[in-house]
């Protein structure tokens, strides 16, 4: 299974679950719900952080945080 960090720019995916419990609480609050579609919208100049489109807005997070979000195949 791939993580969000492995998606390329403009790629889309559906959130499947989380690898880190305490981070997942924050991510869920921010609207990253399992079953929601996400798209990688921006990647900062040195490859990190990234910005994703989720639940109708733009959320930025670091690569290692994105690595905790699993994407459905």
């Amino acid at each position, binding site marked *: 299974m791939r993580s969000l960090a492995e998606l390329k720019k403009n790629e889309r995916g559906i959130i499947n679950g989380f690898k880190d419990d305490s*981070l997942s609480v*924050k991510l869920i609050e*921010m*609207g990253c719900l399992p079953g929601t579609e996400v798209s990688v919208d921006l990647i900062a*100049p040195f490859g990190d*952080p990234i910005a994703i489109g989720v639940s*109708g*807005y733009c959320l930025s997070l*670091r690569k290692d945080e994105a690595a905790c979000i699993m994407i459905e195949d």
Partner: protein
Amino acid sequence: MASTDRIKIALVGNPNSGKTTLFNLLTGLNQKTGNFPGVTVDKKSGFSKLPDGTTAEIIDLPGTYSIYPKTLDEQIVQDILLDPEHSQYPDKVIVVTDASNLKRNLLLFTQIRDLGIPLVLVLNMIDVAQLKKLNIDLRGLSIDLGVKIIPTNSHSGDGIAALKEALTQPLVKSKRPFYDIYDLAPKTIDAIKTEFDLTENYRAYQYAQQSVRLNFLNDKEKERIAKIKDENGFYDVPTQSQETLGRYQFISDIVDRNVKNSRDPLKKSVSQKIDRVVTHPVFGYLIFFTVLMLIFQAIFAWAEGPMNLIEGSIAEFSGWVKGILPEGILSDLLTDGVLAGLAGVLVFIPQIAILFAFIALLEESGYMSRAVFLMDKLMRKVGLNGKSVVPLISGMACAIPAIMATRNIESWKDRLITIFVTPFMSCSARLPVYAILIGLVVPEQQVLGIFNLQGLVLQALYLLGFLAAIGSAYVMKLILKAGQKSYFIMELPGYKIPSWKNIGLTIYDKSKTFVLEAGKIIIAISIVLWVLASYGFNDNFRNAEENVRQQVGENASQEEYEVALSSYKLEHSVAGSFGKIIEPAIRPLGYDWKIGIALITSFAAREVFVGTMSTIYSIGASDDDEVTIRERLREEKNPETGGPMYTPAVAFSLMVFYAFAMQCMSTLAIVYRETKGWKWPIIQTVYMTAVAYISAFITYNIFS
């Protein structure tokens, strides 16, 4: 405390939903304490007149995504809403949401609703929602959520009258919770409800979830809760996830039912298009640095006219006062003491206004969060965090709000480093010092046709401060132990056309604070200084007339005699003696005892420098024709060389000293408050002053 008959209304909502804009609309200029533009990090209150004639106290709070705080600023919301005994516990809450992004915004709404506080729901930014082609069924939404809804546009003011009207109505508390958490932990909730005599299940549940963070509970009560949780097998994190997911399920259904999106979801929005450019590897940084350049150029080029005007008017006024008052102590104190000091403050209003206007503009437009995004990776290399960009940039205006702005940095280590290095950023109080010294030794000319040389030197000084901040951060990163892992989950809000009202209020508020706060210290110090510089207790001072008569000789004209007398008196006055005492320590930097006096007073606040210089040199000169302080400094001779005192070496050495030294009591006070102890403010003072001394020494030797 405020009188009890006045109702308190709190504004609560997600960050950037427009709470402060709404607050400004409701209160106008009736605001109590100042806050910083863009991000609200502390509560702020003001008063609003409601249609029924009553006055309500409105409280603006920092934005938060949920009732579970992740940062210190978010904590404030919880502190107030979960503690009915809190002095600012609201009678009513206005939940402000961004109508163009309802789903995420409604999570917090449902939580506050379940706490049982009477509330009204504002769908702000209704204009943005329309632009996004969202059709919102307000009636349906209101019924499904069980709350009164008011759509507003805080830019045009649409809906504000309806909101004020709604605030006068009794708001009904809903009987049933929006989302019943009872089944998640029935035993724990029952036990806490009995123990603490609570009525709402959700409140009891919050005690269980957040007991460690609730500042109003004492240790014994916290222990009690821990025990109840233990006995009933309550685990915070999984229950919280379950709660949030459960709430979202309801919210999603309701939003999908009542909000119809008639736009092609794959079409790029304007914000997305702008972001492609603004975060581009090349253009991104180019834009970032161009923006900074523009700010510096503006400070120098645009402020010039108004500054001359203010400087000229005060000199004229001072001359007029001298003319109408009988010669003597009162006239001297007023003109040389108070007015000279006041001129030092007032003249910088244009520059400070421009600086704050730019920073407000960056925040308002949404650009600031892109700068955070762009700089995160680089900042992490030196021990900072992308979010440190905001304090560092705000630090160019004033270190005090900048240090408060660090409250939204989650990691303590990142936050501490940011607090430690922010005072190195050249703040607006350094501007007066730089401006006067640059004006003295740097010729006014154009470089490469477009750049103002004085502006470039100023920019170099800002750069110097920035490099000192970065370098020090790097050193601290190596010394301090790594704390808990920090995270960086941040919304990039859509770009907004700034609200000119918000910016105007910021400029007004900040200039006023600067004049009042700085003005108070400066005038006080000017008066004290004038007294200390006009009187002395040693024999030299007492016998000044005779000694000077002997020095200048019998043939000297009356005017020569008077000039010599006043400078002789200053030298032997109390202030002069202080200056003389520290002179050996500052001689290696190129300073004399007069500058020594200014250095001493500057430890209260660095902007006092100009006022002090004005006072010293007005007293030192005897003639009463009014010349500006800059001209006076230019005329000052070095008694040893006979050349001008303010050579480039001395001026640059002074600028570097002021760039680095910790000369601001207010900053120390705020660092004390934010780090909860004297350890860090003391280390900071010693460290910064040492850096200042060494660098000024090197600079002086390079230029002389």
